[in-house]
Each structure stands twice: as structure tokens, then as C-alpha cells.
């Protein structure tokens, strides 16, 4: 049977009538879990609403989605799960028409569809709540909800009707929002609910929710759950992403797990435990790509942060870095780790707390000052924050340490050339020359330039935020070795990376963060992925 748009809820559709065809799946010699290939309803094979066949998408330097296929069925909540950067959002954006796949097919009700722009997908009954807010802060809630699908009366927008319908929608789904309110002035959680309402307003057959709960409070998550349940009963399909494990189990019927852009498999959630999911997500063998760790313990402390807080994202964070040690942060996306690094680097202001370098307290509130005091920072977004893409490799490498090589404001070219040459050699940056525009380098080498920029200033402490994002294994390995060498040379290293294996393989000590606070600290043998996950999900 095919469910058509607009057909009402079919309660109990799946009650007992379904039979699962289980296909055993071997996973790197670990526990076998059950994968599903199709739902079978009453002996009859149910037709999928949405089929993704061999979908592929590359960005410069990243194979974001690598030939992924899966199917979604009516009346189910289909969860996508995977580490940060696994390619979940990219798949969903291709479904919503924001990105176009390089190859592969999207089929709706068995028909192949091509979305050139989001409007095409909307016309086919697909609505998406994006991971990044798309609310327009200057418009009212009603105006936002009906953006680009405005109700018109005699060619003119009917604001009154839109307000009425917004109220109606809100009541229908139990979302309390004032349709008149200016969206930008609402609290973040309410804005997210508006975002959800906006997607619901088009009465989609397929609703895509990309981490909708990351900004919601518990009660609102429950409201969303009720909404999703209602839609499910109406036979709609929901695609859902959340990094919160309990929500995966609460919301989901089926789960597709991805890793590094590749499909791991599609499973029935009730057959999996949370450990299974984590293992499938992380599932990567530790290879000998990490340099050996520090042997000695209790070396002298070089850097200490006490009770650091900022305006809202970081709360009372304290840690210290010892000589020769690599300190790692492990956290899920958006737990304040980036803000912590930026605050320590002076890019953000701190509101409370003390920072000591070599036992001496430092006072600074700007990146400029922090740099002078010997705190280097490598931002996670090399294109947005790290590099000036229009400048050359050399100019970028020299940028942060310019003041070291100048006479009365004039740059000493010879000294500069020497430092640039040193950095290119030391970091093994593959560039035909220092004059090459940094935009023309491969991602990995761009990242090395971004790190080299900080190193050229000879920092005493180096803060690394996602230093290996979007670069290949070989380049990664080089960066690991570099980090280890720097640590040996006495530079204090604090690193955050969303790649679990990386934190594990690289760090001598790890602290986990959740909602802006430190939730645990692990060192030596304690460093192990399940323990980390527990800390990162605040389940410890």
C-alpha cells in the first residue's frame, strides 16, 4: 500500500503486524548486531516513501557523503547517527534541495526526483528544520512561519490569516508562541520551536529534523516528541538527528549509522543498545597512527586556568597543563568547548576566572594581548577564522608574528623569509613556493599553514581546535607527530577534536565537557571510548 499525502492517521499501523527480516552484520569482529533491509507488513513488502540510492557528495578536500543508500518508510521516525562530520547534515541538505548530489538518486514514492533548489523539495512535500537557525530575527513569528508560503488574499498577503493559522498550528501541535512577537527577541529555545512550526506549516509528508533538540529544554523536547508521535500516526515520515542517545531511543524506529561519509548500516533501534550504537558510530580500529604518549607523570605544571566563565557558554572551568603533556577535551558538538578555547585565546572575553602561565597570572581580554603573552590559538574553521585566503602562504605564516620582525613598522624581509622557510620545512607544507596563494593548497596543507601561523610566534601554550578537520590520514599523522614534538619541547598543548579516536590516541589526559562544564577527567588507562562517551553525554 502506498500512503498518499493528506491521508489521515492510521493508528496501529505497525501494531504487531510487522515482521522484521533480520540480516546479521559482522562488525570488525565485535558483537554482531542486526541490520534490516526492509520492513514487511503483513507478509507484503511495504513500499518505501523515500529511497536514497548511492548518493554521493564531495566538497573540496572532504568526501562528505560516500555512496550512501537507505530507505525510509511511512509512519516511521528514521534516525541518522554518526560522529560530527560524518555527513548526516549533508545528506539531509541534499534531500531538502539545498545541496545537489554529485551522483546518485533520490526517489519519492518510487519516482526519481531532482531538486535544483529548496523550493522544488518543498513542492514535493519535504520540509526541513536545519541544524543552523534560518529564522529571520527582524520578522514576526507568523511571518517567519509562513515565509515563502505566505497566505494571500487577492494577491496580497493576508497577515491576519497567517497569524490566525500560526495560532491554530501552535494549538494543534501544542507549541505556545506569540505570532506577533519578533522572532529575534525570543529565547533560543522558542526560536527553535518557531523553526519547527515553520516546517510543519507546509504540512509535509516528509519532515526532516536536523538536531532540533540541541537548543531545546526537556519539556520542549517532550512537546516535540508528542508532535513527532502525532505525525507518525498520520503516516508521515520523519528523519531525525540527535546526538543525545536517550532521544535516539525515545524518538526513533529505525537508525542509519554513518561514519566518515560512508554508510555503516541501517538497523531497527529496538534491537540495539546504546553501546551498540556508540560502537557502530565510533567503530574504527586504533591503528599505529598515533605517536607514543608521555611516560613520566607529574611533571611541572606550565599553564593553569581557574574557575573560568564567560557570558553564558563556559561555566567555572578549571584545568592545568603539565610540561610535555597533551591535554584533550572530549565533548559532543556545542557543549562550550569551542567557546572555552576561544575564551582562553582572548578572542572572547571572560567574565570570571584566573589564568596562570608558568605560575604568573596573566591578564588579557583580547587575542592580541594573549598572543603577546605566548598563547597561540588554531581555530577550527581555517577558512573562516584561520587564514586569509587571498594572501600567500608566506604572508599567512608570518601574520601572527609580524611584530617580532619589524623595525619602526617596516617588515624585515630577510628575517621574515627565514621564518617562513623554517615553518614550511618544519611542518612539511607541500607548496610550490611561499608565494603561492594559500587558497590553492590542499586542505591538509592549509591546516598546516594555519598551525604554522601560530607556531611562528613561538607560543608557550598552543590551543588547537579541530586541527585535523577535513584532512586525510597522512596529513593527520603528520600533525599528530608535530603535536607530540611540540609537547616534548615544552609547549603546553590543549586540544579539542570531535574525532573520538583522535582524542584517545593523542591525549595524555582528557576532560569531558557537557553544557559548558567539566563533567569528568580521565588519564592513562582510563582513557577509553565508552567512558568518554558517558562523560560527554553526562551519563556518568
Amino acid at each position, binding site marked *: 500500500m502506498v500512503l498518499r499525502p493528506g491521508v489521515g492517521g492510521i493508528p496501529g499501523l505497525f501494531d504487531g503486524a510487522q515482521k522484521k527480516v533480520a540480516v546479521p552484520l559482522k562488525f570488525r569482529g565485535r558483537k554482531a548486531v542486526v541490520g534490516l533491509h526492509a520492513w514487511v507488513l503483513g507478509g507484503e513488502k511495504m513500499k518505501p516513501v523515500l529511497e536514497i540510492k548511492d548518493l554521493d557528495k564531495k566538497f573540496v578536500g572532504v568526501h562528505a557523503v560516500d555512496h550512501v543508500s537507505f530507505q525510509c518508510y511511512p509512519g516511521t521516525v528514521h534516525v541518522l547517527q554518526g560522529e560530527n562530520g560524518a555527513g548526516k547534515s549533508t545528506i539531509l541538505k541534499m534531500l531538502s534541495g539545498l545541496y545537489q548530489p554529485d551522483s546518485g538518486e533520490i526517489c519519492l514514492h518510487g519516482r526519481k526526483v531532482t531538486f535544483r533548489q529548496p523550493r522544488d523539495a518543498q513542492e514535493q512535500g519535504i520540509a526541513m528544520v536545519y541544524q543552523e537557525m534560518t529564522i529571520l530575527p527582524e520578522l514576526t513569528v507568523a511571518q517567519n512561519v509562513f515565509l515563502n508560503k505566505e497566505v494571500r488574499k487577492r494577491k496580497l*498577503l493576508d497577515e491576519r490569516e497567517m497569524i490566525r493559522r500560526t495560532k491554530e498550528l501552535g494549538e494543534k501541535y501544542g507549541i505556545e508562541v506569540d505570532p506577533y512577537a519578533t522572532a529575534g527577541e525570543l529565547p533560543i529555545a522558542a526560536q527553535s520551536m518557531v523553526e519547527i512550526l515553520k516546517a510543519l506549516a507546509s504540512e509535509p509528508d516528509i519532515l526532516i529534523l536536523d538536531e532540533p533538540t540541541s537548543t531545546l529544554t526537556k519539556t520542549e523536547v517532550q512537546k516535540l516528541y508528542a508532535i513527532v508521535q502525532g505525525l507518525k500516526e498520520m503516516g508521515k515520515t520523519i528523519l531525525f538527528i540527535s546526538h543525545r542517545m536517550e532521544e535516539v531511543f525515545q524518538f526513533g524506529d529505525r537508525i542509519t549509522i554513518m561514519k566518515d561519509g560512508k554508510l555503516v548500516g541501517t538497523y531497527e533501534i529496538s534491537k540495539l543498545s546504546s553501546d551498540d550504537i556508540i560502537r557502530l558510530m565510533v567503530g574504527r580500529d586504533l591503528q599505529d597512527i598515533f605517536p607514543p604518549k608521555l611516560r613520566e607523570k607529574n611533571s611541572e605544571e606550565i599553564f593553569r586556568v581557574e574557575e573560568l566563565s564567560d557570558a553564558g557558554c563556559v561555566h567555572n572551568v578549571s584545568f592545568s597543563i603539565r610540561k610535555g603533556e597533551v591535554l584533550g577535551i572530549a565533548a559532543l558538538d556545542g557543549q562550550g568547548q569551542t567557546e572555552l578555547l576561544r575564551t582562553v585565546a582572548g578572542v572572547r572575553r571572560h567574565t570570571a576566572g584566573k589564568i596562570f602561565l608558568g605560575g604568573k597570572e596573566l591578564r588579557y581580554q583580547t587575542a592580541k594581548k594573549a598572543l603577546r603573552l605566548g598563547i597561540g590559538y588554531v581555530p577550527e574553521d581555517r577558512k573562516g577564522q584561520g587564514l586569509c585566503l587571498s594572501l600567500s602562504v608566506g604572508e599567512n605564516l608570518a601574520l601572527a608574528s609580524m611584530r617580532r620582525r619589524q623595525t619602526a613598522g617596516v617588515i624585515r624581509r630577510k628575517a621574515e623569509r627565514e621564518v617562513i622557510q623554517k615553518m614550511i620545512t618544519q611542518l612539511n607544507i607541500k607548496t610550490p613556493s611561499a608565494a603561492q596563494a594559500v587558497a590553492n593548497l590542499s586542505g591538509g596543507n592549509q591546516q598546516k599553514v594555519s598551525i604554522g601561523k601560530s607556531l611562528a610566534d613561538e607560543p608557550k601554550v598552543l590551543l588547537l581546535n579541530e586541527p585535523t578537520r577535513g584532512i586525510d590520514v597522512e596529513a593527520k599523522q603528520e600533525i599528530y607527530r608535530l603535536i607530540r614534538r611540540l609537547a616534548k619541547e615544552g609547549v603546553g598543548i590543549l586540544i579539542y577534536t570531535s574525532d573520538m579516536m583522535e582524542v584517545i590516541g593523542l591525549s595524555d589526559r582528557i576532560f569531558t565537557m557537557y553544557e559548558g562544564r567539566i563533567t569528568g577527567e580521565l588519564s592513562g588507562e582510563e582513557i577509553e571510548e565508552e567512558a568518554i562517551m558517558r562523560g560527554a553525554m553526562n551519563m556518568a
Partner: protein
Amino acid sequence: MEKAGILHSKHDRLLLFKRKSEVIFVYIFLVIFFIAAMLLSDRFMTERNLRNLIISNIGLLFVAYGQLFIVLLGGVDLSVGSVISLTNVICVTMITENPSTWFLAFIASLAAGAGVGLVNGLLVVRGRLQPIIATLATQTFFAGVALYIMPGPEGILPSELCKFITKGWNYLFPLFLTLIVSTVVWLLLNRSRFGRAVLAVGGNEQSAKSSGISVGTVKIKSFIFTSLMAVMAGLFISAYATSGSPLIGEAYSQRSITAAVVGGAALAGGKGSVVGCIAAAGILGIVNNLLNLRGVSSYYQYVLQGVILILALAISAVRTNKK
């Protein structure tokens, strides 16, 4: 339910005030200037003077409406001045006493305006140029075209036509025209999908795109609309001047930006107001008028315009920063 209703409407009014406060500021300004003008010149409040004040600023208002849309998109359109000149030159060249030529000239002007707008839009969207740079090029180019058609001031427009447009129906026609145009522009910005799309694109291009809005099309349409408003302004200004001059529009690029910005169009796009434009054009007009009435030299007009602009910007900036 009843209670909630009351609550809402009260809340509504408060919100309305908060949201429109930029515009309200402009009107407070307007009132201050109005009162100052009344106090400084006893002739200011005469019917005749107010009438003149209005008629001589209608052209500015129209082109400010057009400029508003580009300012909302986060850019500026420098080519409106050339479009006004072009319109004037086309009209004076084509129009004779024969009313059929009036219609032809009108169509030709609109076509020329739409052409300039299209070129601007394509340069910005396909050429990925900043609006200011793209329109700087077209401004220069079309100023040359206007000068090519008419190298110096010459020609006149039929007196009865001009009189009708600027004074018809006992001075009610220009008011009526302004009302119609203002209403249409207001509806376009606030009650049409196009206007909503302009606000969305100006507010956040990415969000607009993911909401299914064709960003490029919206931009091109906006540039065409702006040029068409400049044509409207050019027609009115021509009727007011009654004669041809290839440089007649020159000053309007800058003045229209001033008016749109003073009128409360946020400088980074996505916010702005038709109602605010009216007050802004009014303020600029009153300053001009008052200085004339008091016989003050024209350079004070520059200085004062600069001061008003800086002040308006400062207030807007302070308010934005507070948030």
C-alpha cells in the same frame, strides 16, 4: 480566551511600538524640524508654502522608495540618478503637444529604466559584483547615454501636461499620485511575497535560500523595481522642471540614499520602512525650505544634511549596539 485576547492586543501595541521605534524616531525628528521651521519663519505654515514643500520633494520620495529596496538588500544603487536624467531626456526628446507621444515616451522611459535595472541585477547576481561597484559602472555609462541624447539643457515639455502633473485638480493630483505610489510601494514591501522575499534576502541570504526563495531572482527584480521607481521620479521631476537637462538627476543618487537611510532602513539590510522614507524626505525638504525662507546660503544645506545623516546613523547604531 477573552482575557488572552486583551492581553495579546495590549502586547501587540507595545510590540508594535518597539518594532517601529526606529521609524517613530524619524517622525519625532520630523516634528522637531517642523516646529523649528514654524518658529523660525512665520511664512512656513502657509498653505502655499506647505504645498510647494510637498510638490518639490515628491520626486525625491519616489526615488527613495526605489533606493529603499536595494538598501534593504544590503547595497546601494548609484545608478538611479542616471535613470532620472535618462527619463528626462527621453521625455523631452519624444514628447510634443500630441498626447499620443506622451504615452510613447512613458513606455520608452519605463523600458529604458527596466533595462538599466536588469543590467544592474545581472551584474550583481551573475557577475557577483558588489551593488555599489556594479551601479557605479552603469551610472557612469548611462549618464553618458543621457548626455549623448541631449548634450546640454534644451527642450521643454507641454505646459498643460506639466501643470496637470504638478498642480492638477487644484494641487490634489500630485498628492493623489503620491498616495497611490506610496500605497503601492507599501503593499509591495509589506503585503506581497516579493517584498517579504526582499526582507528575507536582506536579512539573511542563506536562510532565505533554504526557505526556498530564489535569491538571484529577487535581487534582479529589486534592481528593476528600483530603476522603475527612478523612472517615476524622473517623470515627476521632469514635469516639475518643465524642461530638459541631461544632468537633472545627478544629485538624486546620493539624496535618495540619504533619505532611505535616514528613514530607518537598517544599514546591513533586512529592515526598513516606506513610512520612514516619507518622514525622511520631509525632513530633507523642510531643511531646504527653511534655509530658503530664512535666506541662508546653500552650503548650510550640505552641512545640515551631513549632520542629519550622521545623527540618524548614530542613533540607529546606538540602538543596534544596545541589542
